């Protein structure tokens, strides 16, 4: 599970450099994320622009990461591809995340 992280001001941006977050990779994703979010930052944006598929295990892992950040920080998502966006929409989990159309938009929204 290749995740690339970079600081943009006080925002930690983590890009998933994989085409899927699925049952075979969900635990590894969660563990890698747990390490990366130790970096001091005000916001965390997960860039999913390269991820074409996310199953229910992958969705569960993204929710788990959001809970690791709470209550001080929120997990924001960017660049959802069509099938990934559909999984969030059908499960109504799009209602609990801040979702940016693209990473650039998420970085602009910095408060």
């Amino acid at each position, binding site marked *: 599970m290749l995740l690339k992280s970079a600081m943009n001001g006080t925002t930690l941006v983590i890009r998933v450099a994989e085409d899927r977050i699925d*049952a075979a990779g969900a635990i590894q994703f969660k563990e890698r994320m747990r390490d990366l979010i130790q970096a001091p930052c005000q916001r965390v944006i997960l860039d999913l622009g390269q991820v074409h598929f996310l*199953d229910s295990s992958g969705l*569960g892992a993204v929710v788990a990461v*959001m809970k690791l950040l709470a209550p001080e920080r929120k997990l924001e998502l960017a660049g959802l591809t069509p099938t990934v966006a559909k999984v969030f929409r*059908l499960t109504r989990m799009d*209602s609990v995340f801040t979702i940016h159309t693209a990473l650039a938009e998420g970085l602009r929204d910095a408060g």
Partner: protein
Amino acid sequence: MLAERLAVPVMAATEVRFRLLAEAGAVRDGLRLIFAEEPLLSMSGDDRGNAEIVLAEVLNNVVEHAHAAGSGPILLVLSLDEGFLHCRVEDEGTPMPGGELPGGHPVDPADLPEGGFGWHLIRLLCHGLRYERIGGRNCLSFSLPAERSGG
């Protein structure tokens, strides 16, 4: 061993059969292969996306529940007919609890659930979902809308 981990397409009339092992990695490899072959290859992007969501959930359920105690073979049979992709998934694992499909009631997003999404997604996207236990095998069948791309 490697060949066994991959799904193997076998043409039989209009049905396409894939065999894969009930293991998370084999399901991932199998889905890649299945979606690179007909009939899924030439389906529209939207219908391919729905099919991948459903097939991934169904196959991962077999791995995590029916075959929780150990791997075994899964047979996936696909056929395309009049705008629908008909799917049948068979495995030799343990039966569904109570001999019935889970209800798939939607979880409440406010509870921040980390699971329980699978059957809800399957039920939302599938038509004619049916489960039978036949001769020690779980047989799940369902259909999905299937437009041809660029058609």
